[in-house]
């Protein structure tokens, strides 16, 4: 039954070491668990509880406060259509209705083939590109019904696999350095390794918990269009 796999277990331990109290690492670890399995399983939550010193019920009780966590499997792609005020003013409900028809599910539902889960979301902070949506929390702005169809086709055919991995991308956010302020003699910091070679070495050696995060940030999503597409103008 799903518990954290060895790599993710190591990441969880590294996270715990970053905080004055282990419980603070709970939510970051739950993100890792969710991206491993697609949802938070009972066994997984038990495992996380053991790690941070909480009863399973405390883990679940905390996780259930947060909208991003799911306790049942969801579709490979979680499509969250923002219907909040700025998007609503630009026709978000028409987009949501189109999505419902296209996918054949109501908000909260998952398509029979397990591909898509649809959500009626609150503001995603991409209001300059309204109406907008996220797929596994990757942003797509200025989405019209045709754009929605093209997007779901691309997703189905795996054309966006790099940008939109299943179940999210938070798992790619990997810290390369343990706590370092106390200095090189502090044995409480996680095991060491040098940071990426392309980085100009600073005056003090820092410890690393593994390879620097593999970034795909050159493949930006439309969120930066807020900046790129003349939106950040003012008066240049």
């Amino acid at each position: 039954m799903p518990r954290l796999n060895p790599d993710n277990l190591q990441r969880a331990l590294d996270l715990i070491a970053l905080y004055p109290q282990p419980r603070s690492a709970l939510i970051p670890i739950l993100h890792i668990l969710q991206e491993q399995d697609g949802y938070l399983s009972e066994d997984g939550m038990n495992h996380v509880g053991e790690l941070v010193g909480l009863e399973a019920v405390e883990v679940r009780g905390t996780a259930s406060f947060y909208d991003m966590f799911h306790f049942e499997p969801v579709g490979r792609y979680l499509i969250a259509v923002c219907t909040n005020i700025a998007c609503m003013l630009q026709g978000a409900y028409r987009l949501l209705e189109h999505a419902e028809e296209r996918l054949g599910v109501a908000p909260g539902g998952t398509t029979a083939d397990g591909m898509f889960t649809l959500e009626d979301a609150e503001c995603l902070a991409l209001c300059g590109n309204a109406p907008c949506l996220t797929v596994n929390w990757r942003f797509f702005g200025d989405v019209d019904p045709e754009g929605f169809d093209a997007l779901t086709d691309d997703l189905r055919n795996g054309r966006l696999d790099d940008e939109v991995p299943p179940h999210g991308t938070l798992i790619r956010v990997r810290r390369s350095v343990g706590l370092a302020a106390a200095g090189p003699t502090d044995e409480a910091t996680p095991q060491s390794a040098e940071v990426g070679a392309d980085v100009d070495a600073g005056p003090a050696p820092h410890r690393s918990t593994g390879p620097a995060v593999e970034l795909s940030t050159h493949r930006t999503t439309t969120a930066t269009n807020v900046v790129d597409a003349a939106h950040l103008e003012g008066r240049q």
Partner: protein
Amino acid sequence: MPVTDAPKIVTRRLRQDRSWTLESYLADGGYQGLRKALTMTPQEIHDSVNTANILGRGGAGFEAGRKWGMLRQESPVYLTINGDESEPATFKDHALIEGDPHQLIEGALICAYVIGAAQIFLYVRGEFPLALERLQAALNDAYGYGAVGHRIFGSDFSVDIVVHPGAGAYICGEETALLESLEGKRGYPRIKPPFFPAVMGLYGAPTIVNNVETVSNLPWVLLNGGDSFAALGDGRSKGTKLLALAGHVKRPGNYELEWAKVTFRDLIFDPRLGGGIRDDNNLKAIIPGGVSSPWIGPEHLDVSLSNEAIAGIGSMAGSGSVIPMDHTTCTVRAAWRIVRFFHRESCGQCTPCREGGGWLEKVLERIEAGRGREADLDLLMDICDNISPGVAWPPAQTTICVLGPSMPPSVAAGLRMFKDEYLAHVREGRCPFPPDRLPRRLARV
């Protein structure tokens, strides 16, 4: 008013190629503010920040320097940066974290140096994975560069930074809820007093919570001096302000402008800014400072976008989000959607917020659906009055935090400004604004 030539303090790098990388940051004088800070005493920097009079950019508008001065000198002190940005139609911090994460890191480090923070936590909304990815990568690089960690740039100052993701809860933007969340708990706002985390914050220790934009100003202030910052803007509203313009304008987006030097008219109609209302429609109303703020009408177009001026007309500048709505907007539907948001996001600790929100949402929904009664208008005001006695702004509070009292303004302002529209819904038994875009199936909350 003409739009001024004020420098872009927090956004100037955002248009550069790969602006989020260390390379790009260093090419533009990155980390020079921190280097300079480390040659000064914390008190000297604190004085300079007081001179700059940086109002908190998270919504409450409290002076950053004054907040830092409230710390009792006990150890440890923590610094937490609020990057939870979830206020509807606010999207400025999102752009700052994604586009210039090193500026945020540098600003946080300067603040940490002044307050003697033992550790810094950057709390970023969980729904921003790209921002989290870039911020973590920037932090990894900043460690390697020697800007974070042990003996920063060879000085005696050491501090660690941790990037912490949220997990989807608007209420965690409220600073005490944020701290609960950071402790690994449900995001319930804490009962006040103590009013300030500076007295009792993370793990019970004194903690400073500042907004992303607030601290992103610090590198510039260090390099250019508090006076130069204070020379911009007017009154209490100093420096520049990043305004998030959304809704029915031709050119929505983030605009960094000298604070208190533009009016709503400039922001909405200047061709270099909002460029006017879409389809050249008529402007009906403006939500001037985030959806918690009372709406204002076109008669206030010439009010300056400063904290004081907007407060002077009974509303607030809030988070810096401005939403113009054109004449095709159904104000019942708009109020319904705003109330629905707050109801969904209520943490449920206080009855007026938890129950009142649901009542407002249901009553507005039935008016919009053509099933309302005339008495519903009074009922709405009565519920508002129960959530926030007197329905005034700034609001009286019967609740632990101001999420509850953020519900009445859009209802009360709508009823005051557009009562006929509410009555038309009731009398005609339908929404007079075709096409009706209310969802056929409302998602269950």
